[in-house]
């Protein structure tokens, strides 16, 4: 019955009407729109609904299957929650950009060919940058530009890759791709940029903390998880991903420990959670891919919740720096409570959502006997508790009293946080409904005695480590500082090199040009001395010029005629 309504395009095109609506209607409209989309998404039959021929290819804009459905479901939920959270942030441009961005991401999950994927891929880049620029600061503007260059660059790689692949195989179908051809490698890199692979990751930590309060919540849900979806679709079982994912899970937590801006800490932990999903894709078994899909689902919720709570703090106090915060639980208890639920979920406490999803990926690594990767993931689990589970709530709401007594977040933010927190707990207690919509049948029980006890041991002793380091003063204090990351290459080294290049060759170039001008002047002076002052200044009339040309042509013709055999 509803088979012909596309939930992604509904949000995308419906979102374009957002700026035309009066204020109250607009706010309700953007919450209702994704919920309608969600209802439609749940009543779709599997299969290809719209196929059309364009650019000489068969385009499939509307392929519905289990993998597409679970990602579009969580994207639609995230859009509704994000829009509810943004209710207090009344901004016409932002509201429109958010709908187009979310709609493009959802549409991308339904595409069955690489050409339409490319179109939506670029649209997510262009629409989302407005959520950063809406902050209206010079810093945000520049961070947004860097973000846009990287994101559009990813799209360009995707386009090159799909063109090469189409040339080689004659097909643009979006199914398993693999790294066999040059096209596949380029597509892999394009996905890798959006998925924040090591050394390609820095756009994330650079841009998300500069976005607006609600912009960061919305950004955290879509771009990176769309890339996870694309990798799961195109590169499941690619062994290299296991190692890339393990590196991603491990290295950002070191940065998270020493970072001061708590929204940047969350960006690093977002990167670390993506690592788990990428490992799952690399392992490629049914359990691992289920784990990736489940973890993407739970991660979107708890990461949005954490960004919401830090956004509320930023909204009320004007800062998200650990150095300037502390003691906020006294006046923002609701926000603090929701933040702790998000922290418990990302850490994988039993009865919270992270526990039932992350454990699938770790179990898949153990079953595949990848003991190094398994240890790294265990380390990353302990580490994520350390920086997201403890550090975020501790430095914002407890620690030393900053003396700030901001009022509690507005009701719309509190409601959005409350619903998201409730979902995190509900999924943790009752994972069956989530397991039922995973791509493959689930034969996995997270609540075994050994698993619950082991996870509690891991987390409690991590907490003890934090307590011990804190009380002995060994824990590094929060500081106003920038920590160098891969972005130093394009923000510092390349500009420096360019400047050095100009500084070295600039004077040389100037000297050479001056010498050239000087010598031609000398030449003119010499000519004038020999032939008189009118030698070079003389002008010829048009008729004179024409007769010269006619004469030359006549000579040319005569020579041509004479040279004939």
């Amino acid at each position: 019955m509803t088979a012909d309504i596309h939930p992604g395009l509904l949000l995308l095109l419906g979102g374009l009407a957002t700026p035309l609506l009066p204020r109250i209607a607009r706010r309700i409209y953007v919450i209702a729109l994704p919920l309608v989309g969600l209802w439609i998404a749940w009543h779709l039959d599997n299969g290809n609904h719209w196929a059309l021929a364009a650019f000489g290819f068969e385009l499939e804009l509307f392929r519905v299957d289990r993998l597409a459905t679970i990602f579009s479901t969580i994207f639609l939920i995230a859009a509704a929650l994000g829009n509810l959270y943004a209710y207090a942030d009344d901004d016409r441009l932002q509201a429109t950009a958010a709908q187009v961005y979310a709609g493009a991401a959802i549409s991308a999950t339904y595409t069955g060919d690489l050409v339409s994927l490319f179109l939506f891929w670029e649209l997510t880049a262009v629409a989302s940058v407005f959520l950063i620029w809406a902050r209206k600061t010079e810093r945000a503007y520049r961070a947004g530009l860097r973000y846009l260059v990287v994101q559009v660059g990813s799209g360009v790689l995707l386009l090159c890759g799909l063109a090469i692949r189409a040339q080689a195989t004659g097909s643009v179908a979006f199914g398993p791709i693999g790294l066999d051809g040059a096209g596949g490698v380029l597509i892999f890199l394009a996905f890798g940029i959006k998925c924040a692979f090591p050394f390609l990751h820095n756009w994330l930590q650079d841009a998300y903390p500069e976005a607006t309060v609600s912009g960061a919540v919305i950004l955290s849900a879509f771009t990176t998880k769309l890339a996870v979806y694309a990798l799961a679709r195109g590169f499941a079982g690619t062994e290299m991903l296991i190692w890339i994912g393990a590196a991603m899970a491990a290295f950002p937590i070191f940065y998270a420990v020493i970072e001061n801006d708590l929204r940047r800490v969350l960006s690093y932990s977002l990167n670390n959670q993506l690592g788990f999903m990428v490992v799952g894709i690399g392992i490629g078994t049914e359990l691992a891919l289920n784990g990736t899909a489940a973890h993407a689902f739970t991660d979107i919720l708890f990461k949005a919740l954490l960004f919401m709570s830090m956004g509320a703090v930023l909204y009320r106090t004007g800062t998200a720096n650990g150095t300037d915060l502390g003691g906020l639980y006294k006046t923002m208890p609701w926000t603090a409570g929701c933040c702790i639920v998000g922290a418990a979920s990302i850490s994988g406490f039993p009865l919270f959502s992270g526990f039932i999803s992350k454990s699938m990926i770790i179990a898949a690594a153990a079953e595949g006997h990848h003991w190094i990767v398994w240890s790294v993931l265990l380390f990353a689990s302990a580490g994520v508790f350390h920086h997201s589970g403890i550090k975020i709530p501790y430095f914002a709401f407890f620690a030393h009293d900053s003396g700030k007594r901001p009022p509690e977040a507005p009701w719309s933010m509190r409601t959005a946080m409350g619903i998201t927190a409730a979902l995190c707990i509900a999924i943790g207690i009752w994972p069956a409904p989530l397991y039922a919509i995973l791509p493959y049948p689930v034969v996995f029980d997270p609540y075994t005695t050994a698993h619950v006890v082991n996870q509690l041991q891991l987390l409690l002793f991590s907490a003890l480590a934090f307590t011990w380091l804190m009380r002995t003063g060994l824990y590094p204090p929060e500081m106003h500082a920038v920590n160098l990351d891969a972005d130093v290459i394009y923000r510092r080294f390349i500009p420096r090199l360019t400047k050095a290049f100009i500084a070295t060759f600039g004077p040389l170039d100037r000297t050479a040009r001056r010498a050239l001008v000087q010598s031609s002047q000398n030449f003119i002076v010499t000519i004038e001395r020999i032939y008189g002052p009118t030698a070079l200044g003389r002008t010829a009339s048009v008729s004179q010029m024409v007769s010269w040309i006619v004469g030359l042509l006549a000579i040319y013709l005569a020579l041509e005629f004479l040279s004939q055999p």
Partner: protein
Amino acid sequence: MSGKNPAVAQRHYWIDKPRNVLRIVRGLCVLGAVLFFTDALYEKHPHFSMDGWFGFYAIFGFVVCVSLVLLAKWLRTVLMRPEDYYDR
């Protein structure tokens, strides 16, 4: 920002007292000890050898977290720059 509610500013909370913080810390230590010895009470199904050791997850959690923080602290000496580093 605003919201300087004098009643809230004056109020003393349970967790503000160092004595109570110490109570929490002691509670955590007791809980940790209990959990550590829980390993004797159930059957383990290790995938590798080390995850079958007694108290493996507890020791692993403590050791990696301390190493993580100390290593990250050392990384600051290499990576840390003034806050306006990129603006100059």
